[in-house]
């Protein structure tokens, strides 16, 4: 006992003054891969654009001005609100929210189903859910394009069944983008909910049934609160990448389904881009996401403080 305590105080002595050194790797990683890129983006968003891509080191608010205001073709008219980009943002938020909702509606029962299998089978089900995601997202999205096009297998199958008279036009619609987002991010909803559901104590359901609760009441009052952390984590994991997604909208959607991800991507692609504008759009997107997350975090701590 005495030896143990002595060595404990010794080890405290060894690390004294070196705590900063030991934490350095974490700071380097955070600094290089998180803070530095965000700072660069922030700075670039306030610079002047170079026409062939890149920036001129001269302070300018032009990027943000372009996002929010319309000053006419030559920039000499009185400013009006520019709706183009706000519409794109609104559409993206809507699409991402919808994708999150769909993922939740399908993902929760799926996760619950897996969590209620015998442990031996759970692994198999989880593997089946994740295997498709070993394939690159681009390839999966392109494959979906082939699946859902007018002469693709989906339409041919439905035609063969006689359920439809002529092919359903899916490509370049919001529905196609939605389908792409849903398929891209479904496991990110299933896995966290599964992690919560797996820890669920089924005696709680029995206790609730014993206390006169029917199945829906048990789901609403006992099961959902128990797996809520998984639902929230899953929703964030689906919502955030859906908001910035560009593969699904680019490949499956058309001009009418343009989303923020594609808008940003375009600004940095080839010579036609506008780096400060792309950086500004990214910053605005980041602020929206951060606002949502901070709101959630504060909600969570308030709940825990109770």
């Amino acid at each position, binding site marked *: 006992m005495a030896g143990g305590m002595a060595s404990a105080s010794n080890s405290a002595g060894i690390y004294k003054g070196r705590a900063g050194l030991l934490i350095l790797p974490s700071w380097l990683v955070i600094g290089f891969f998180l803070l530095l890129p965000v700072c660069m983006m922030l700075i670039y968003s306030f610079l002047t654009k170079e026409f062939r891509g890149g920036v001129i080191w001269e302070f300018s608010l032009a990027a943000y001005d372009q996002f929010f205001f319309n000053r006419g073709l030559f920039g000499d008219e009185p400013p009006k609100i520019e709706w183009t980009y706000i519409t794109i943002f609104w559409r993206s938020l809507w699409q991402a929210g919808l994708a999150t909702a769909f993922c939740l509606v399908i993902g929760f029962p799926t996760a619950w189903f897996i969590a209620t299998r015998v442990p031996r089978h759970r692994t198999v089900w989880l593997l089946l859910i994740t295997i498709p995601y070993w394939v690159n997202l681009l390839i999966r999205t392109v494959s979906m394009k082939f699946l859902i096009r007018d002469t693709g297998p989906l339409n041919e199958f439905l035609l063969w069944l006689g359920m439809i008279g002529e092919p359903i036009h899916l490509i370049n619609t919001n529905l196609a983008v939605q389908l792409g987002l849903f398929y891209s991010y479904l496991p990110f909803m299933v896995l966290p909910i599964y992690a919560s559901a797996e820890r669920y104590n089924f005696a709680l359901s029995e206790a609730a049934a*014993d206390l*006169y609760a*029917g199945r829906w009441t048990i789901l609403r009052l006992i099961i959902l609160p128990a797996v809520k952390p998984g639902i929230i984590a899953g929703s964030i994991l689906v919502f955030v990448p859906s908001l910035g997604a560009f593969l699904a909208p680019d490949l499956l959607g058309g001009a009418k389904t343009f989303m923020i991800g594609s808008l940003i991507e375009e600004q940095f692609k080839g010579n036609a881009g506008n780096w400060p504008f792309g950086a500004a759009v990214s910053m605005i997107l980041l602020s929206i996401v951060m606002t949502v997350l901070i709101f959630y975090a504060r909600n969570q701590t308030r709940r825990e403080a109770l």
Partner: protein
Amino acid sequence: MLQRTQDTTVAVDIDRVTKNYGAFTALSGVSLDIRDNEFFTLLGPSGCGKTTLLRSIAGFEEISDGAIRLYGDDIAGLPPHQRPVNTVFQQYALFPHMTVAQNVMFGLLRLRKSDSEAQTRCAEVLELVQLSPFAQRYPNQLSGGQQQRVALARALAPKPKLLLLDEPLSALDLKLRQAVRVELKQIQKETGITFIFVTHDQEEALTMSDRIAVMSAGEVQQVGTPRDVYEAPRNRFVADFIGETNLLDVSVTSVADGQALCVLPGGREIICPAAAVVDPGPGHLSVRPERMTLTAPADALLSGRVENHVYLGTDMQVMVRLEDNEVLTLRVQNSDAVSVPDIGTQVGIALEAGAARLLAD
């Protein structure tokens, strides 16, 4: 002992209940009458079917055959939430995201009681289990004993016709367990609700129950008051499971009027009470360790050599090897007045009157 007029209205009529899991029979034709206002215990080792029976009454298990009647109504087909029966679970199963008060009111609100009515009743039962100051706490802020009392309060709140308790004390430490036993019995008397209590702990069963059903291998072995099952065990299983006992191989000469004439190992004869009908021939005699005394070897019913003693604090346990190589265990009170013979000493054993009992096998 307090005189108590036993109400003989049947609260729960368990009628030839059978439960099969595939080829395994968890309950085979169990029949029991549990009386109104009774503290009834299902006692048995793990796997004996006691928990299956409790869960069948609660509605968590569907019985394969038979009927369960609650005050005359067959409830075997009803889902758990339609049975006027509440359960105290082994690990309590308190809702972790609800306060103590919300847990207790859960059942009341499901029964569509008004908020004010639920709150009044909640305060009442929390008072009963002495947890009023903890109403706004969450379960993880309570000790094990307090959680156990919340589980009890939650189950009592809707005033069930029948309260089921599934080994509710097994997660508590010994001291607390002993205190809760007394409290639980008290609460049962105060509320007048019929309790069915499941346990594998014979001491718990003996101290709290009005009647005990001893179960083994999916069957009821014996039903009776604690005194009945301890002092007049029907068969070897009951004698062995409840308390400690010595099983002596004897040869039964004759049985008449509940009395049997048996030949003990060593050749002496004894007349003792017999459980039920026993045929003449080889049989088993149960003798409790505390109901035998050591005597001089000369004239004793049984004799042998002291093989070992074990110091138990209040008692000394003395093992005596009889001439036919059977080992008997005796309990001798640890006192200066009694001297325990040394190991190897030849001793005689005397039985108290009525201490031995012939068992049905």
